[in-house]
């Protein structure tokens, strides 16, 4: 299988994940680090909910 690792892109291991604040599916604003409440988190970027 061809290499599919683009690991240079995006925040690096060892770096603090940048702050972000986006609306969720209810329209409510979500501040990622605040919403984590000191827990570990898995942040997944997927292609689309529409296609």
């Amino acid at each position, binding site marked *: 299988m061809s290499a599919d690792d683009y690991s240079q*892109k*995006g*925040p*690096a291991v060892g770096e*603090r994940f940048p702050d972000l604040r986006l609306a969720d*599916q209810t329209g409510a604003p979500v501040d990622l680090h605040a919403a984590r409440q000191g827990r570990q988190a898995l*942040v997944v970027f*997927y292609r689309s909910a*529409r*296609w």
Partner: protein
Amino acid sequence: MELQKITGDLAAKGIVLFAISYDSVETLAGFAARQGITYPLLSDEGSRVIKELGILDEHLDSHHAEFGRPTRDDQWGVAYPSVFLLDSDGIVVRKRVHRNYRIRDTGAGLLEDMLGGTASAHGAEAAADGQVVRVRAYLDSPSYRWYQRLRIVIEVAVQEGYHIYGTPIPEGYVPLSVAVDPVDGLEVGEPAWPRPHRFRVNGLAEEFWVHEGIVRGSVPLMFTKDGTGDHRLRVDVRYQACSANTCLPPAQVRFELPVQEVAAVDAPAKQ
């Protein structure tokens, strides 16, 4: 949605899940309702965050050349499918970024890659016994979509007093290997086995690298063709077992792993 399948496993580990895309809140609301999504779907409409983080897919045209499809206007802004595991201080401890949007993980694959865990729901297990080994295997997902990364998880239990060969291996001996019968559109990657350990036999100058006890490995797979239906993957595990003073002839066990195709939803959802 694959992520919903592992929310239980994540919650058990105290890990919070966030999923982000360039969809509008409206799209996400409809999707969450239809799919019964219980975790936050964040809307990065306009791809501002995606661009800031450096994961905007700028190679859509070359990806589409690979699939033989034209790029639609509404596809610009999509992110490279990526996953970041953050520790309790919000530091990235693990990450994975895929080269194009077609490649996606199963929930189980994600759990394994990012957390080293095994998802509670995987494909049917097959078992086969050889003379001094017992092999169990399963696909980490009972179903597949094309361009979804799957994995065969294999466990070889070697009877006490025996060992099987890994690599590097002296000529004439047969190392542990896995082969999957070819299937049209199936890409099989290199198996990953634990590191074997060194073994010296009295009176022999050669050094052997062997596995003993329970040996757990995996084989990555991906179907790259749509519409090939359900399959029974035929898998061969080859090995050679020796005790301190006898070598058995090379042997193999064979088993089948079923996997069902889930129709991919590729066209834009109807309004």
